[in-house]
């Protein structure tokens, strides 16, 4: 039980570090640590498939993509645009207002029961795969088309314009 609170605290801390660090590369690295703590959360929920996917796809693929783009664009602290302090404070206040609204809305929910792991094995690869390929077969195939479209779109967008060069 206390593991949850420790990992939750770490996740919030590193998420804050992500948005407040000046150096963009450090920001990406803090985001990787945040995703790692979220992976630990998935393991605690016994969602092992999601933990592995989160680890490989988010930390392995997406974050490396971010790092590659940063290195490609040769970013550093000097090139970092900064907002004026007024806009920063207003943004922080707006974010806190959202949080206060959400927490206020959750106060009316009756206090929930504690987590019961009655169906502890739904997150295993075997059970999730059965659901994925029975009930969700059509969305699964459509998502493959989405990924194909995204791949073609990314290549087309990032390609150098031949006529201009």
């Amino acid at each position, binding site marked *: 039980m206390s593991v*949850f609170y420790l990992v939750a605290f770490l996740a919030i801390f590193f998420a804050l570090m992500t948005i407040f660090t000046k150096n963009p590369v450090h920001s990406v690295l803090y985001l990787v640590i945040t995703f790692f703590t979220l992976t630990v959360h998935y393991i605690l929920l016994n969602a092992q498939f999601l933990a592995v996917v989160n680890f490989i796809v988010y930390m392995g693929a997406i974050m490396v993509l971010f790092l590659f783009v940063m290195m490609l664009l040769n970013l550093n602290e000097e090139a970092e645009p900064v907002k004026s302090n007024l806009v920063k404070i207003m*943004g922080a206040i707006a974010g806190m207002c959202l949080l206060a609204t959400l927490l206020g809305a959750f106060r009316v929910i009756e206090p929930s029961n504690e987590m019961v792991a009655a169906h*502890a094995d739904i997150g295993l690869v075997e059970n999730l795969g059965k659901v994925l390929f029975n009930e969700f077969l059509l969305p699964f195939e459509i998502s493959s088309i989405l990924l194909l479209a995204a791949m073609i779109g*990314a290549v087309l967008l990032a390609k150098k314009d031949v006529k201009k060069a």
Partner: protein
Amino acid sequence: MGNIVEQIQGVPLNHYIIFCSIIFAIGVTGVLIRRNVIIIMMSIELMLNSVNLLLAAFSAYRGDPSGQVFVFFVMALAAAEVAVGLAIIIMVYRNTKSLDIESLSKLRW
């Protein structure tokens, strides 16, 4: 596996909701206070991940695997979004030589 599952037994669902709301609010704040386009995209990833975790928590709480399948689809969608988004960012950088979101303000009518 047994003792890991026992670790989570005492945590109420409300605490998951509060925790994910905090992470989501941090992501919104990041979008609002930063001007670097890449950091803004990273904040969006943070928001997506908080919602993912909440879906997984509800799924484990209700004993319904559909929530975890949704998380899987959201992850596939996030991968597509990041690929296209970063390609757009590279194109913008090539044209404006900066990553400042303000350099795109001429898109506003």
